[in-house]
């Protein structure tokens, strides 16, 4: 029952309707953009921009290929942001969306520590740096539209070319396989199927993912396929044993080395220092 969006890079024409509809559905203010030498303005996700389309020009022989990549929160199957948050402000819903409770459910526990931002492998969450009491913000998979109103996410509805397809995750994986088998131009990889334990948003493409800004290799190694929460848990699960074991060991040592009479008369040993010396 976990929803998913399949993004087909080959079909995206970079019209940015998804960005506009995301802003308008979610009442997000526009960001002042600076002049830049490319088509990526504003170029990155932020607290006010939950989805962004970046453009890539690839040279292939004497041919130029334009490719456009829509980015947003990947809605990981086991989200790092959720496991990192110590106030449980992020939750993975059974519908697949990873939502932020302070703004979504009015459960305002977030302390604004930004550990979720350190944790997210896709650098998604944005912080309202200019607010006195800032929230963390990111794509919410249009949880309100999909859950309460039975609609598709605003960006999917807005997409004219069928680059975005919304449905059950298994069905989207099957659809991706189907397209890949029918058309040999596709790279044989579904981005998001396994990365960091899998994500709800899936991508297929006809150009290698690393050439269009996807994280496929880090420090010359393929990206981790295990979910980040499972890594942390491998360490955290020892906490109670260390607590009890180390405490017991210390108590035993203290008792063992304790001399018959404990005679450091501390009051005589120490004294205040006199600054006038």
């Amino acid at each position, binding site marked *: 029952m976990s929803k998913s969006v399949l993004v087909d890079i080959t079909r995206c024409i970079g019209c940015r309707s998804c960005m506009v509809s995301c802003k308008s559905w979610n009442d997000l203010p526009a960001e002042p953009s600076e002049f830049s030498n490319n088509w990526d303005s504003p170029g990155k996700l932020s607290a006010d921009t939950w989805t962004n389309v970046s453009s890539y020009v690839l040279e292939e022989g004497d041919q130029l290929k334009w490719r456009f990549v829509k980015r947003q929160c990947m809605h990981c199957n086991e989200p790092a942001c959720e496991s990192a948050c110590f106030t449980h402000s992020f939750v993975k819903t059974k519908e697949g969306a990873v939502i932020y409770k302070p703004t979504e459910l009015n459960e305002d*526990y977030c302390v604004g520590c*930004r550990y979720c931002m350190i944790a997210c492998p896709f650098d998604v969450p944005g912080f309202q740096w200019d607010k006195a009491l800032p929230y963390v913000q990111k794509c919410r998979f249009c949880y309100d539209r999909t859950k309460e109103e039975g609609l598709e996410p605003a960006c999917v509805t807005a997409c004219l070319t069928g680059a975005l397809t919304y449905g059950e995750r298994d069905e989207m994986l099957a659809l991706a396989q189907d397209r890949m088998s029918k058309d040999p131009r596709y790279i044989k990889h579904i981005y998001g199927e396994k990365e960091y334990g899998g994500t709800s948003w899936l991508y297929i493409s006809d150009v290698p993912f690393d050439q269009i800004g996807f994280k496929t290799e880090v420090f010359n190694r393929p990206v981790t396929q295990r979910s980040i929460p499972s890594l*942390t848990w491998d*360490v955290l699960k020892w906490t109670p044993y260390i607590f009890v074991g180390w405490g017991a060991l210390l108590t035993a*040592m203290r008792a063992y080395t304790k001399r018959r009479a404990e005679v450091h008369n*501390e009051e005589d040993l120490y004294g*205040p220092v006199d*600054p006038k010396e």
Partner: protein
Amino acid sequence: MYGRNWSFRITWFRILLIMLMLGAVAAALYRFVFGLGAVTNLSDQWPWGLWIGFDLLCGIALAGGGFSTALIVHVLHRDKYLPIARAALLTSLLGYIISLVSLFLDIGRWYNFWRPFFYWGFHSVLFEVFWCISLYTTIQVLEFGDIFFEKVKFPALKKLLGYMMTPLLILGIVLPSLHQSSLGSLYIVAVDKLYPLWWSMIIPFFFVWSAFFLGPAMVTIEGTLASRAYGRQPELPVFQSMTKITMWMMIIYFIVKMIDLNYRGVFGMAFNGSFESNMFLIEMIVFILLPIFMYAIPAIRTKLWGVVTASLLVVVGVVFNRMNVVFTGMAKSVGGSYFPSVWEFLITLGMWSFLALAYLFIVENFSILPKEEHTHSTHTSYGTGFNV
């Protein structure tokens, strides 16, 4: 001595500290009204900066002197270290207070700071860090209460604290061991973000172990500073005998580090000439191997300058390591750039000025440093010539 009233001598140096502190308070108020963006250079790429990297991570590590001395003196009962026990406790307590203050300044929705006590995100490393730090600070306040009530007479309370002291002491070692290590575990989530020379599944071990061996070095520095400031004899014999603990722990640290790098197959990255690899080599050679040798050579170890220099290297080395984890190791993967703003520096400076002032006030009014057996007139050579 105890009949003496409260005293706090004002010198120019202290006036400077007070002004820095007031400046920081003003900047902090500004930050609360206008938000983090108005005073810091933090961004979505660099959500954690100077306050978390330096004041929290380093502050807590530098406070490691508290728990290592507590372990040595109160659990292993090595009484010869008793003269430095209280000073170590005091600086540790102050270090934790700084860390809590910087955490409070750094969190965006600060009025929610108490929430993690009630909404249990126990799968978060930060949850463990938060609980341990708050509990341990409370414990240190109680431990300090024992000293406090020597001066401020309140026999009933002092007696009560006396009963609680053993469990407090044990908890006061277990909790910091746990959270010193979990400050390292915080970075396990940064897999594929933190450079592999620092990222490791056993980064918690490296953090707790270095916080521990940092302790004696930190105590040496503090002790020397205090003795200079007050024209006293430094506890040289105590410092020297502690070097053995530090040296062996550092040797083990180094060996485990090498094994870990090999096991993960990233050993070669230390020599690939990148910025990260050079920083890593500096960390290992200047701040680990060099002090090990200095501690190992008696001609250096037995001199005051020798112990102090080696200890300084150890202390700076741990700070260097934490900074590498927070900044150097993350720079490549997160992109963008971060350099703290003047305001961030000002607030940091102000917090550490507060620490210095509080330390001076407390040692001059409570029984923290050992009484000197002899009169002090002979030790003028240790004076600094300036008034702290």
